[in-house]
């Protein structure tokens, strides 16, 4: 399997043009229907993190998960860890995900994901997940 995503060009107020790694994953809603979500690929994030309202769409009772403390660049937060099926290019991965009670940038982190792929970043053009 090889799945590539183009970098997303954005015009930030702080730095002007920046290129971001936006990928698409599949998740299942409370009725079992597939939906897709944009995620920022973050090799510095130990775990994938999603906002609680994404969990609500999925029918996950977020606060019944394992409460863990996580530290980011501006401090620490409690998030609730659940194991959920996450799909990349149609392939399913049982993935531990931390759900934050507040709205956060949804991030695709390393745990349970990166070990399955060779991930390459090609200049500011694209990034690819390969077996």
């Amino acid at each position, binding site marked *: 399997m090889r799945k590539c995503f183009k970098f997303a060009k954005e015009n*930030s107020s702080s730095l002007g043009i920046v290129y971001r790694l936006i*990928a698409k994953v599949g998740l299942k809603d409370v009725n079992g229907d597939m939906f897709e979500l944009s995620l*920022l690929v973050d090799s510095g994030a130990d775990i994938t993190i999603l906002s609680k309202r994404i969990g609500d*769409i999925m029918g996950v009772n977020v606060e019944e998960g394992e409460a863990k403390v996580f530290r980011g660049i501006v401090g620490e937060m409690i998030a609730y860890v659940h194991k959920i099926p996450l799909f990349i290019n149609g392939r399913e991965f049982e993935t531990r995900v931390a759900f934050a009670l507040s709205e956060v*940038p949804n991030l695709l982190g390393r745990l349970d994901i990166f070990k399955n792929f060779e991930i390459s970043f090609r200049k500011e053009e694209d990034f690819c997940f390969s077996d």
Partner: protein
Amino acid sequence: MKDALEYFRANLVNMIAKYEGEYVAIIEDKIIAHGKDVKKVYQEAKDKFPKKIVFLGQVPRKEALIL
């Protein structure tokens, strides 16, 4: 079939100007709903197109990110 992520990516600069900090629900190359509450955005799109796969794009804020 047109790819919703590709549409999201290609139009992100314009989307930040209009929908900064919101979610957009996209099916193929059309924005079906938008708003800050992603569950409501998703439900609105599913109500309109119950058989379609909804893509939810999180439109970033205009500031650069350090994560």
